[in-house]
């Protein structure tokens, strides 16, 4: 649906749902939820998915949810615009790469570039923001690479593996965005053989 260099953003359908139990019962969940760890049964995940499907219509005006798919068709995770407020024209971005072997390879950054372009050029949003744990250096690097600026550091906001860590908040104004093509060029993102 949205074509990038390393990934495409597509509807978050069955191919993604089938991976959720594995993703949620792994290290991925810790990073995706900012410090939570859980052990989910199949039934719990299925119930969660059913509840989410029931609420999809209600959330439609405030969120847009994509699956992240590699160029050879592997479901990698999800990325979403959430808490969209048309009167302020802002939205929160959430992202999770469910396959750790793809971490640090530019896949998350490519997905981020795609959703920023979508938010500004299709939804006419004016500002995007995201937040992550102080210990999540990967997410912070990706945000800065894409042009976000650090705006706030909420102290001891998250509790992760027995220690308090900050919440680092980033913001990107549309006026500051040089466009996806310019950033793809600047970052040197190139198509490559898959992992």
């Amino acid at each position, binding site marked *: 649906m949205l074509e990038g260099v390393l990934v495409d953003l597509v509807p978050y359908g069955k191919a993604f749902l089938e991976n959720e139990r594995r993703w949620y019962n792994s290290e991925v969940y810790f990073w995706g939820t900012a410090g939570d760890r859980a052990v989910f049964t199949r039934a719990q995940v299925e119930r969660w998915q059913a509840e989410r499907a029931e609420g999809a219509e209600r959330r439609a005006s405030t969120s847009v949810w994509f699956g992240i798919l590699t160029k050879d068709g592997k479901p990698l995770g999800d990325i979403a615009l959430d808490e969209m407020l048309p009167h302020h024209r802002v939205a929160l971005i959430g992202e999770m790469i469910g396959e750790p072997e793809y971490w640090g390879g530019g896949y998350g950054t490519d997905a981020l570039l795609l959703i920023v372009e979508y938010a500004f050029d299709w939804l006419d949003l004016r500002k995007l923001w995201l937040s992550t744990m102080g210990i999540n250096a990967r997410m912070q690097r990706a945000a800065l690479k894409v042009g976000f600026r650090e705006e706030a550091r909420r102290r001891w*906001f998250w509790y992760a593996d027995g220690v308090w860590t900050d919440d680092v908040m980033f913001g990107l104004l549309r006026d500051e965005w040089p466009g996806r093509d310019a950033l793809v060029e600047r970052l040197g993102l190139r198509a490559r053989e898959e992992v």
Partner: protein
Amino acid sequence: MFEGTLVDLVPFEDDYATYLESWMNEEAWFRAHLWDRREPHPEDAVKKYIEKMEKNERAALIGYQTKAGDPIGGLIYDHEWSRVRKVEVTFFTGDSRYEGTDEVLDGLLMLARYCFETRNMHRLDAMSLAFDEARIDALRRAGFVHEGTLRQHIRWDGDYVDVELYGLLEDEWPGYAARIEALGLQASDLEPKPKPEKKLEDEKALDEKILAP
């Protein structure tokens, strides 16, 4: 009733429910709820809001009033999160005469006291529009620490304005009594306002009902 130095915390009902019908459509309300769309709140919406807050186990709307019983406005905690023991706090000065007074500051201190000393929170989150000096002053005096600025985050009267973020950690909270001693709060001694008309009408109706054969 939860007794403070200049104010007491009371259930948000009776006169408060009546006052909220106007308060919820006034400037102070929208400053405290800066994410919300500015829109009119008719009586039904006000009633539903109070009911929603009463049912919400992770939030509360609490009335605060002077020692003479004059309602000032509301104290709110919301999105209490047990895993990280944090909660968002805000307040509104429904009776604008009290804006910037130590009664409002005491209300905020009482809210912090309740969150830390009763609900065992680790962290309080607060935010303010950048130009809301009275709110920022109250947060600072209560001990909240500025943690950053969300640039041009909120549409406000034709402009995009910044939002200032504040936090207060349990390690930074010396306890209500110590905070009060350090601040030396002064009562503003404003004349209590007359009871709301609607209340008088309700009482009259009740009297008529009682007197009816």
